[in-house]
């Protein structure tokens, strides 16, 4: 079973994503900030990471940079409400940039694509 790490500070949204992705057949670990995400990445193996950008404490962009420094092979999806960061070149390091929407289809499709490539 493929393992996904979800970094999302909004509690209700993390519940929604967790349920929906579990239903798709993934094992989902949820953390609410970047520091806990780093801990998780250090101790467990993941096939894919989904992260928001603006979170309390360390933001998603810094998180991506740290993870890239550690584990270059994990695909990363930025899933955020901000469209404006799309032009920020720091986000280009991620494999996909998705603007949050009430339909989760785009997110699910992107996950499928990225995991297939691996």
């Amino acid at each position, binding site marked *: 079973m493929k393992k996904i790490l979800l970094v999302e*500070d909004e509690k*209700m*949204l993390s519940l*929604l994503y967790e349920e*929906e992705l579990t239903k798709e057949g993934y094992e989902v670990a949820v953390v609410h900030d970047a520091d806990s995400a780093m801990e998780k990445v250090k101790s467990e193996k993941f096939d894919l990471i989904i992260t928001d950008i603006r979170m309390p404490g360390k933001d998603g962009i810094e998180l991506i940079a740290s993870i890239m420094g550690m584990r270059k092979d994990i695909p990363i999806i930025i899933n955020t*409400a901000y469209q404006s960061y799309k032009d920020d070149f720091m986000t280009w390091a991620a494999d996909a940039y998705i603007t949050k929407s*009430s*339909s989760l289809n785009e997110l699910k499709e992107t996950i499928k694509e990225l995991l297939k490539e691996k």
Partner: protein
Amino acid sequence: MIEGYKLQPANFNPDTPKEFVLLSIIAQSFFQPFSLEDNLLVILTALTSGTGIGFNRAMLFLKEGEKLKAAMWLGPRSPEEAEAIWTMLSSPGIGYAEVVEHNRELISQTMESLQPKLKTFSYSLEDDNSLLPTLAVRRKEIILVKEARQETLVDLKFLDFIQVDSFLCLPLVAHNEVMGEIVVDNGITHAPINTKDIELASLCALLAGNYIYTTSLYKKVVEMEKMAALGEMAAFVSHQLRNPIVAIGGFTQQLLNNPCNPERCQRNLNIIQEEIRHLEEIIYKLSHFLKIKIKEPIPIDFKPLLMRILERPDIKAKAERKTISWRIADDSPLILCDPLYFEEAVTNLLDNALDVTPPGDKIYIRACPKNKKWLTVIIKDSGPGIDEKGREKMFSPFYSTKENGMGLGLLFVKRVMETSGGKIEVQSKPGHGTMVKLYFKAQERGPQ
């Protein structure tokens, strides 16, 4: 031995050269926070007053789009009026400030009757056959007109209005761009316009042109800043709204797709209701923030207000298992602030302090008169403190370290302090908690 002199002399020594008087007057006015209109009035006054160049009358045109339009007229309407004004203005003790003030009065009187007439003077700047006064800006050249009745290059309608034989057209140009024009004449005394007058007038025109130019640049910058702030706000609001909307949409989708077990259905409906309440709160907070109006600060007795805040149920609930230590002198002076804003600002800060202070720890509130003029209200928490990056950003709109924070609280407090003539200072270091100091203007209590 020491001698004192005024920074800005109201009256100059009679031996001081005219040019110097003129320039120093204009320079002084430009350093004041006057409006564009006021500064143009100063220039028109410099052109017409006895201590300035001494033309009888001046008429200002401004460029609007591709038109040159009459905007202001300064001068007496008849020899009798001129006589009265000039006698008054040359009386001892009348300085330049009084002359400008007088001229402002004169313009507002004459403009009432002249406005309809002035409005008819609107010349196209694209007309290749333009006549004077427009010709001067077309050529970007100062033009002196003599024997105007015989001159075919003068617009007859304009001549009928000013009714003089000789006048001077001064184009206002900055960075090779036309800003407007000033026309001066000696319609009352009929004194000839000499070369020296023209040289001095050209200096005034140069200053006026550049002044109009920088004012328009400044306006553009302010406009751009507003747009940038608006863009940032739009991005933030859409983010704030998007999160609850995604949750509502997602959980609704689940309800529609899945054959629902009653428990799950109920849970999803509860989440949806909660998120809708969250949306309402965002809208309320935003509109509340945008509604802050500057109110005249009044002297208030802040101690009862502070006590009331400490008794608020929401504050009491948050303060459970934490200690709020407060010390406020009974004979504290009154402070200047709007009472409602004072309460909201302090509640905001106290709420922040409670959020970061761990159970078992303390929050300190102190109010102490600094001196006769100032009183400080200090709120110190036992939280983790703020690092340099956080301190830089903490007054930026929409910056927040809280999960559902809008990032408007501290900015609100800052605005309240500024509108009360006071200020806010924050001292914080990681590991040492955060201390917020509010400086209020103090006022002694009157006899009871």
